[in-house]
């Protein structure tokens, strides 16, 4: 580890790829009004280097990356590309230089197919058979299997990310910026991605890698730059660090570990009996005979690879999709299968979907309005006689903000102006603050920094110990093992029996995720 002291930064560390940095950022400052999002930030990325950019939400990583990718202009400072000073006025110019980016929030047109989305990003801009072959070849060789003719709307989050990565690779970039690429992947998928990234690095392509998963940063990255409060606070070779020391550099002090002790179990609050739901979409997954029970005071997690029926299961539980028979989903003893989402909420259920923007929250609406979104039908008087009471919603916003430490610029901002981690804290907090009896939550800490993740996970544990039944649908095994009492695995629309978390290992869960959970069907190989 080396604390930063002026320009000699990093010289003492062994770097891959020779002497001239591929990309050098010198003393970059970016101000929004009086607020400095980047304050004298310097960074060197060598060719063929996998360079981690670490920091909490709001540390200034996104701003720095946007400057490098040309979507923001620095207030002061220089950017050098292969030793030459450059101005990157737009993402198009960044791409022309050879800088590609895979975003955390995807920029894909849902109504179009995979190949059409990719064609849009290419100079020719046309869909050809040759392009389809190239996509198949590239995606296959990098282990990112994709159907070029699938519609984006029908793809899971994990599959959409693959489209983004493949689209980026087709432009033959020399530097790829990756924002939280593994947050939606299973361990096996992530390992596959690491093989891809290492191969790219070996071919001379540099990767600027943003992640909150310190373990994978240690395993993968050659070099790490750590930011805190708009400044670079350290540079280090992550392989020589431990997860603990890295986290400490990021947060500045020890992060509070999630504490968990077994709660007192109450009656069965969530009972899923023989839930079957045919797929509503062309490439969707049909749910087949799913059985699970969650008792009050207990956290049960459903692990699984993206696109194995998680979206459909969440829809069936929330009431956005309704199964054929009412007794397929039983909440607090009531057959809820045919109920609409607000009737289920009245039974004490709360829901947090996987996608924050556009599903869990309306991007263009303020936080108070987003409170009304899910709590107008819960009998709390937020809507009365057809009139909305934004004053009450505003008080809930205040409570959620202080309980979950949601950081925002103005009193009542639009949801889209919050950073990913802060919005997630808000979306989770909005439901948890209601102290629901039943909580169904998908990907509770996707793309959220270690500090915020700890807050969210602790709040879930506390809620369950107060007697709530919590069902987590997650692809993050670390998270699952950290907080779940029992674990089930979903694979191709089938669910394995839930087992005690203490008797399971990540390896065993990984095996179930790769098809071992299926009781019958095609993957008998």
């Amino acid at each position, binding site marked *: 580890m080396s604390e930063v002291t002026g320009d000699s930064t990093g010289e003492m560390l062994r770097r891959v790829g020779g002497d001239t940095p591929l990309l050098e950022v010198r003393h970059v400052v970016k101000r929004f009004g009086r607020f400095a999002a980047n304050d004298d930030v310097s960074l060197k990325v060598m060719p063929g280097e996998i360079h981690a950019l670490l920091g909490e939400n709001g540390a200034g990583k996104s701003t720095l990356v946007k400057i490098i990718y040309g979507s923001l202009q620095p207030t002061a400072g220089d950017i050098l590309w292969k030793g030459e000073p450059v101005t990157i006025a737009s993402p198009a110019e960044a791409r022309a230089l050879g800088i590609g980016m895979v975003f955390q929030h995807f920029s894909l047109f849902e109504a179009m197919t995979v190949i059409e989305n990719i064609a849009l990003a290419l100079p020719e801009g046309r869909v050809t058979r040759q392009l389809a072959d190239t996509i198949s070849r590239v995606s296959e060789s990098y282990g990112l299997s994709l159907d070029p003719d699938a519609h984006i709307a029908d793809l899971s989050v994990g599959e959409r990310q693959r489209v983004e990565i493949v689209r980026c690779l087709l432009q033959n970039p020399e530097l790829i910026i990756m924002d939280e690429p593994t947050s939606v992947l299973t361990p096996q998928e992530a390992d596959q991605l690491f093989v891809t990234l290492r191969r790219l690095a070996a071919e001379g392509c540099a990767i600027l890698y943003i992640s909150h998963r310190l373990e994978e940063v240690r395993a993968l990255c050659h070099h790490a730059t750590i930011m805190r409060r708009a400044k670079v606070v350290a540079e280090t070779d992550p392989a020589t660090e431990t997860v603990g020391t890295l986290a400490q550099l990021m947060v500045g002090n020890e992060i509070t570990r999630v504490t968990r002790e077994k709660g007192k179990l109450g009656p069965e609050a969530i009972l899923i009996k023989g839930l079957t739901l045919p797929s509503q979409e062309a490439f969707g997954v049909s749910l087949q005979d799913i059985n699970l029970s969650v008792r009050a005071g207990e956290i049960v997690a459903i692990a699984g690879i993206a696109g194995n029926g998680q979206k459909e299961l969440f829809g069936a539980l*929330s009431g956005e999709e309704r199964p054929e028979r009412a007794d397929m989903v039983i909440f607090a003893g009531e057959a809820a299968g045919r109920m609409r989402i607000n009737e289920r909420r009245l039974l004490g259920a709360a829901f947090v979907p996987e996608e924050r923007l556009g599903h869990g929250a309306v991007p*263009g609406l303020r936080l108070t309005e987003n409170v009304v*979104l899910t709590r107008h039908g819960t009998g709390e008087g937020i809507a009365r006689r057809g009139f909305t009471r934004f004053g009450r919603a505003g008080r809930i916003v205040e409570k959620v903000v202080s309980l979950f430490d949601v950081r925002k610029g103005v009193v009542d901002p639009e949801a889209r102006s919050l950073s990913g981690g802060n919005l997630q804290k808000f979306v989770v907090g909005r439901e948890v603050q209601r102290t629901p009896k039943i909580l169904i939550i998908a990907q509770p800490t996707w793309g959220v920094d270690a500090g915020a993740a700890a807050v969210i996970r602790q709040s879930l544990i506390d809620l369950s110990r107060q007697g709530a039944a919590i069902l987590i649908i997650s692809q993050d095994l670390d998270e699952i093992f950290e907080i779940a009492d029992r674990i089930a695995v979903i694979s191709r629309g089938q669910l394995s029996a839930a087992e005690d978390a203490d008797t399971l290992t990540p390896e065993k869960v990984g095996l179930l995720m790769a098809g071992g959970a299926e009781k019958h069907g095609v993957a008998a190989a």
Partner: protein
Amino acid sequence: MMRLELVKRTHKSRLMSVLSPLLAVAATVVFAGVVFAAQGQNPFTGVWYFFLEPVSSLWGVEQLITKATPLIIIALGLSVCYLSNNWNIGAEGQLTIGAIVGSIPPILFPNFVNPIVLPLMLVMAMAGGALYAMIPAKLKTVFGTNEILTSLMLVYCANLFLDWMVRGPWRSPQGYNFPITIDFHEWAVLNPVSIGGVYVNLSAPIALILVAVLAVVMRSTLKGFEIRVLGQSPRAGTFAGFSNRRMTTFAFALSGALAGLAGMMVVMSEIGKLQPVISPGYGFTAIIVAFLGRLNPVGILIAGLVIASSYLGGEAIQTSLQMSSKLATVIQGVLLFFVLAADTLILYRVRIVAGREGESLHA
């Protein structure tokens, strides 16, 4: 070399929300001046006759209110459609069908002369417009048909149906073979009443009440919230327990009803019978009014007056300067163009960048 760049704002600019329509109107006035000059007129005289002369007399103000009222009423309904992401382009047809249905009592039952006829006609017109709007709505919710196309095409069906009705079954026996129906009786027309020397009929206060009601609905009711949420984010709307299908039905029914109401009141106040053409395109112009008014009820009130004055302006330049009144249509279109363009400034700010693409400033 300089070039302009748009940079996304983190928040909607409140200043620009207010300023952008004014910028658009200003740009339109300049554009109109250029067009007048190109037509060999003094641009200032042209701008005077087009924009100001029509409202310089009491009679002009009455005309303005008469023209603005149907535009405002229709645009209010359309704003609910557009806010909820339902693209009803067929208000003109719903207006026509509404007027036909509402005209059943005075035409088929001319001896039923009674104060009840007036409200009955208005209610029937609203029902007729709403039912006609149900066709594109149901086609959308059941078959996923594009409502822009279906609602637009149904306009022509409605207008041809009216044409056939007044030439065929409903043609007045006393009409010297003109394609008109019999004159409506005294309880089937709206008579103007003097308010401070300005003569207006019942439709103007109805428009004002509708503006106020919709403003309250959009601002502080759950229905208004539902409209906005479903328009911005259908998936989040479903998550909130709202139904996209029911909203489509609701929005089309409401806008159809208001178009029918407006059409009926135009017929009851200005014509007093049915004839092949009852509207100078109010249903289409109301689309411009809705957007010019930022889909906001009070904005629509103002926009309706602005657009109505352009109708009068078109007539004024025709009589005073012998220019084509088609120029009014051009100016309306240009106004909508500038409004939509200026709206960009609410979410983006303009940055002037020196230097060409790829070149470096720091070199």
